[in-house]
């Protein structure tokens, strides 16, 4: 009887391993180089270290990741560029998509990072507001964006399509929560991992690329 049990257990486990490996293989992972347009990139374009952050403006953990990401950029100023990609989690965050849309339209007028900073700085205020759209509009006005161009961008279905494209690209790359950060393809999740592992990953990548490592 024992032999039959061992044989059955081994058979079932073998089938499960094959199944998981096959599904992983079929799903694959999308390439990180399939970047969106370059309006949401900060830092030298030809930097050896490319950081992609999938983020949601209404997510407190994304706000917490802003400072460590800035620290990394300041530490490795010539070696790092950061690309922002939208990943609005609409179920827990009612206004995430609206914020992403405003930010996407600010990007069209080269003011993405300015609005990005304001949205995160005031996250608690607009998240709990009854009318966050008017607060977004106020921020846009403060930044001096062309109102007509901005409004036509907001109404343009292409804006939403771009956000959805970035979201689905993130999902293909295995993003499940925000913020998810890729440093030259290496995945980190959340501000703590970014703070603890980010610098060592960058140093390793720089060494791999035979680039000089700044003293920290």
């Amino acid at each position: 009887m024992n032999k039959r049990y061992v044989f059955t257990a081994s058979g079932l486990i073998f089938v499960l391993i094959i199944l998981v490996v096959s599904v992983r293989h079929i799903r694959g992972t999308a390439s990180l180089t399939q970047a969106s347009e370059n309006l949401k990139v900060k830092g030298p374009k030809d930097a050896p270290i490319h950081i992609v952050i999938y983020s949601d403006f209404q997510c407190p953990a994304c706000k917490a990741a802003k400072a460590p990401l800035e620290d990394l950029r300041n530490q490795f100023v010539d070696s790092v560029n950061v690309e922002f990609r939208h990943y609005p989690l609409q179920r827990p965050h009612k206004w995430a998509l609206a914020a992403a849309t405003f930010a996407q339209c600010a990007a069209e007028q080269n003011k993405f990072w300015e609005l990005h900073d304001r949205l995160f700085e005031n996250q608690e205020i607009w998240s709990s507001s009854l009318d966050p759209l008017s607060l977004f509009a106020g921020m846009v006005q403060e930044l001096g964006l062309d109102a007509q161009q901005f409004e036509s961008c907001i109404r343009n279905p292409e804006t939403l399509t771009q956000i959805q494209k970035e979201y689905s690209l993130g999902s293909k790359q295995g993003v499940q929560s925000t913020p998810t950060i890729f440093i030259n393809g290496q995945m980190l999740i959340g501000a703590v991992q970014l703070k603890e592992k980010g610098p060592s990953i960058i140093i390793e990548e720089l060494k791999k690329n035979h680039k000089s490592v700044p003293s920290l």
Partner: protein
Amino acid sequence: MALLLLIMRLILGAVFVYSGFSKLIAPLENFTAVIEGYRFLNPQFIWPIAFFLPWLELILGTFLFTGFLTRLSAALLGLFSAVFVTLLARSIVLKLSITECGCFGAGISLAPKQALLLDSGLLLMALCLSIFSSSLFSLDKKLQK
């Protein structure tokens, strides 16, 4: 009674199969981040648990679903459920910043309180199955012939 136990066996098995599978097809970093969020483990233990736990959930869930080593599988899954219930209750009491339990990868999103309710139900089912077993349409029954 036999039919009720069969239904419990299929539900409990299916939930763990889905839970393990959805974590296994996603990058490991997602589940390590979920475990980190519960703040109960020394960092050196997080990676091994993130690696092995989904496999155990998938294997034991399949065993239970097919009625193979039913009592043992149910007892082990009951143990997992008890641990999950404890961790979820702890996260609620300590007001940890966990908005999503991370139980099912990207598949199903549950708040800690919802997950606590689900896991308590699973724990009850696992207890029933480890006490009474379920031989209807089971591999155990076929193998004992």
